[in-house]
């Protein structure tokens, strides 16, 4: 237990880290998640103190900015049903944004809603980053807003310990862009490792990775 917490804090303070997994997992669970496309990279590390509360650290690179944000993740509500599970999460934190050579403060707020059964998967996330434009005139004027909708289904039902395969369609909308980007993913997971490979209609590729320790 002490070693696990030591590893968590070691990774947390390591300069290049990190981002979030499922915002909160099981008690004492560590989650490492990485989203990668040609436009952005996101790395998230979480440590769940309880099934309802986790501390995390996000690294996000997008649109010329790099964000480093420690954050708290809360499970607000969970519905455990016999054939499905639904959740509402929220996150908040404060950190820094590097844009060009300048660094300024930033604040994070995020809401995640999900519902899944063994056959279907839905996920809605909105990430808001308040930028300190007054401190850095080189920043874009608008705050960072990113909405992500994911809809998926499993072509076959796999059980615990089997290789699980999912098809997922992801729709991304940035506040400062008019178009909605669509990316199709194949998700695989087995035991405590999950990975996704995807491609958008403009030909760009994406790779996501997640592990529970």
């Amino acid at each position, binding site marked *: 237990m002490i070693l696990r917490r030591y590893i968590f804090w070691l990774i947390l303070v390591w300069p290049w880290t990190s981002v979030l997994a499922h915002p909160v997992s099981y008690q004492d669970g560590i989650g490492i998640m990485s989203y990668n496309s040609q436009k952005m990279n996101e790395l998230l590390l979480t440590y769940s103190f309880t099934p309802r509360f986790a501390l995390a650290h996000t690294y996000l690179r997008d649109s010329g900015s790099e964000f480093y944000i420690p954050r708290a993740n809360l499970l607000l509500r969970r*519905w455990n049903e*016999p054939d*499905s599970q639904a959740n509402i999460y929220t996150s908040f934190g404060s950190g820094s944004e590097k844009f060009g050579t300048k660094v300024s403060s930033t604040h994070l707020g995020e809401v995640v809603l999900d519902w899944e059964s063994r056959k279907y998967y839905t996920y809605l996330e909105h990430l808001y980053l308040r930028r300190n434009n007054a401190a850095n005139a080189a920043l874009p004027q608008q705050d960072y807003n990113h909405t992500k909708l994911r809809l998926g289904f499993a072509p076959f*039902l796999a*059980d615990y*310990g089997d290789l699980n395969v999912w098809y997922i369609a992801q729709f991304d909308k940035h506040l400062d862009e008019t178009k909605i980007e669509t990316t199709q993913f194949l998700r695989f*997971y087995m035991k405590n490792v999950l990975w996704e490979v995807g491609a958008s209609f403009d030909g760009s590729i994406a790779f996501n990775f997640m592990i529970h320790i």
Partner: protein
Amino acid sequence: MKKLILALAITLTAPVFAADNAEVKVSVKGMVCAFCAQGIEKKFMAQKEVESIQISLEKKYVKLKFKKGESLSNEKIIEILKESGYDADIGK
């Protein structure tokens, strides 16, 4: 009052846990994702009393096999499932 109802429900559904045996089977609600259910295996296998665990998403149960002469109380099993993010379905 809630504790009283819970204790009564556990008592009335004793076959779900069959605590006197070396194996117990617990119905679990919300266990639909094998990746997320990893926590159940990790938490139970961290208990010195547990020898092995079998998880079935299809049949929605967790089956625990205890070491010889060992067992976990129903309350402890429910607590571990809670820590893993799930609820024991004591109505089944």
